[in-house]
């Protein structure tokens, strides 16, 4: 029978079907960070269980770490205790750790691919919903809760119900200055934040094939924002070139690698494979997207007015009103009219080298508007190093930005980087929930290019027609 990419990966990982109707699935890679793991390790300790495969478990610190020059000495005692707990847990269990000060520390979803931990055809989990990022490699990757983290640590498996498949085909070519961030925001605007619950996306079509690996990761990163369990993109030559490009220590070597590549080439969905659901989006018609509300599904083309109470499919008038009130916006208003306070370029959605290059291109030779605080936070120390080698840091600082060390930073504001109440932020991250970037803070999700241009203008602009402030 014809199989989808998802079916092929799933079938290869079923240890056995269980009597309760779930499947016991083998997990090849388990990524761990400081926030969602301490209680799992504690659970193992209390039950006297051991980590079954420390060599398949990889950890880093990202959520809690300061990204300014104080990063090596965390002042907040509770954050510090959490980071130290991860150090102890990794040491006691013989788990790879890329901690603070390590050359490879970074956001868990940035360092996985960077180090070759993520390669096609695997199952990969992490106690973090944006684990869907890794699906860009054609690896089945999804977020789990802490109880499941403990389950994977103890058994290297998970009990799972087989999800449905949902194909999203992007036909045609993207317009200039429109990026994968806009592709995924557009999708969520169409289906809503619960539209894909219980499903695994497969993103395909001409516009997806044309994307680099980093751009593909941006789309898969936000699969969870559509409610999906995971997002997948079939591995192709672009994937293989990325995996083989630099020294990625965990990529197989020699004969094993050749065998693996042969397997990877067989992964794409069979031409006549059936999906439970299909959606076609014309990529050539996608405009730069800006979220206006408090849910990623509340998003519009940059040149459209803020919608009215009854104009938002999937949201009740009451919910739209609550969102408008929280965001300090009125129906019919142009987004360009609202003044921004902060611009954040970073997060596991858009903090890789290509994202920084794009932002730098917009900022080159320009200055941020005086009233804007501009924060550029690379996704990993490796990205930071590369950006500095290319002189991007100089462009950012000359434009008036703060150039930071790697971490999640203002994506969730667990470290000292946060918005004050009612501060308005253009952010390249993935969630505009109430208070996400600081209690009372107002987040607008955009691409790195749109964020950089907004920093210069002091408000949103249509990057397609903006003349750079001249």
């Amino acid at each position: 029978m014809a199989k989808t990419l998802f079916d092929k990966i799933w079938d290869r990982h079923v240890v056995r079907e269980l009597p309760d109707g779930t499947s016991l699935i083998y997990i090849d890679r388990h990524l761990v960070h400081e926030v969602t793991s301490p209680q799992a390790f504690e659970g193992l300790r209390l039950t006297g269980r051991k980590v079954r495969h420390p060599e398949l478990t990889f950890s880093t610190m990202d959520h809690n770490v300061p990204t300014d020059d104080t990063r090596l000495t965390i002042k907040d005692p509770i954050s510090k205790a959490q980071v130290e707990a991860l150090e102890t847990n990794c040491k006691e269990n013989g788990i790879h750790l890329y901690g603070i000060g390590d050359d490879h520390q970074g956001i868990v979803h940035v360092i996985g691919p960077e180090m070759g931990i993520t390669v096609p055809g695997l199952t990969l989990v992490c106690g973090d919903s944006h684990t869907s990022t890794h699906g860009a490699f054609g690896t089945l990757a999804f977020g789990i809760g802490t109880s499941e983290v403990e389950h994977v640590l103890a058994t290297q498996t998970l009990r799972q119900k087989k999800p449905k498949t949902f194909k999203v085909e992007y036909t045609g070519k993207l317009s200039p200055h429109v990026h994968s961030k806009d592709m995924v925001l557009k999708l969520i605007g169409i289906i809503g934040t619960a539209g894909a619950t219980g499903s695994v996306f497969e993103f395909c079509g001409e516009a997806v094939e044309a994307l680099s690996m980093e751009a593909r990761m941006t789309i898969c990163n936000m699969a969870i924002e559509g409610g999906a369990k995971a997002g997948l993109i079939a591995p192709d030559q672009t994937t293989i070139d990325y995996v083989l490009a630099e020294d990625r220590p965990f990529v197989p070597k020699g004969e094993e690698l050749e065998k693996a590549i042969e397997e990877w080439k067989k992964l794409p969905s069979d031409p006549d494979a059936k999906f439970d659901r299909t959606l076609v989006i014309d990529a050539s018609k996608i405009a730069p997207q800006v979220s206006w509300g408090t849910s990623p599904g509340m998003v519009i083309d940059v040149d459209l007015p803020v919608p009215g109470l009854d104009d938002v499919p999937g949201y009740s008038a009451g919910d739209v009103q609550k969102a408008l009130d929280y965001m300090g916006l009125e129906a019919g208003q142009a987004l360009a009219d609202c003044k921004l306070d902060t611009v954040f370029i970073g997060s596991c959605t858009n903090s890789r080298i290509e994202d920084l290059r794009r932002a730098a291109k917009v900022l080159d030779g320009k200055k941020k508007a005086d009233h804007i605080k501009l924060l550029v936070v690379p996704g990993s120390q490796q990205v930071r190093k590369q950006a500095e080698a290319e002189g991007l840091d100089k462009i950012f600082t000359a434009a008036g930005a703060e150039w930071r060390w790697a971490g999640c930073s203002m994506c969730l504001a667990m470290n000292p980087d946060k918005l004050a109440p009612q501060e308005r932020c253009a952010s390249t991250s993935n969630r505009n929930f109430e208070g996400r970037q600081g209690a009372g803070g107002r987040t607008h999700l955009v691409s790195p290019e749109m964020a950089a241009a907004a920093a210069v203008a002091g408000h949103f602009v249509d990057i397609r027609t903006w003349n750079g402030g001249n």
Partner: protein
Amino acid sequence: MEAFTTHRGILAPLDRANVDTDQIIPKQFLKSIARTGFGPSAFFDWRYVLNGDVNPDFELNAPRYEKRSLLVTRNNFGCGSSREHAVWALAQDGYKVIIAPYRGEGDDYIPGFADIFKNNCSKNGVVTIELSEAEVETIFKAVYGEEGLEATVDLENQKLTLHGESEVTFDFEYDPSVKNKLLKGLDDIEESLLYLDDIKEFETKHATWIHQ
């Protein structure tokens, strides 16, 4: 995990759709390495005003809901972050049951709960009940209409009963694997380790290079 068979308690309403886990428990509380102590921080940004006082405008703060243990809300509850802390916070704040509506069918289907959240509930003995929008509307009306309205959940028979002036009973669907686990209070890891031999055998056949 404690077994869940039946539960009777007071119902409280949260009339919002798409309540995300950042709202259920904001990030500043995720720094804890403990599994307890999250209850008072549930819905923190709504529950308290900026100076830390209780927010009188937040509906769950009304005195009539003080002793509630069942929550009725709108669709896609628990979306966003995978943080299990959200479930710990709700459970420790006394919620044993959450009721939310699904909507539509086929391509238009919107669930009552987000996937990871629902799954996390099942690991912590919290029962998530999905009913139709019309049924949930009836429950909202009943809750607003009668102070101290109680309800009983009978998981074995998959029935929810409102003990209002006249009793109303709703039947609900429940995933049999989750139901069985909740009824018996089973520990997932212990259950899975029963298949350790299968796991070992699988590992001998699975690609070896993953173990570098």
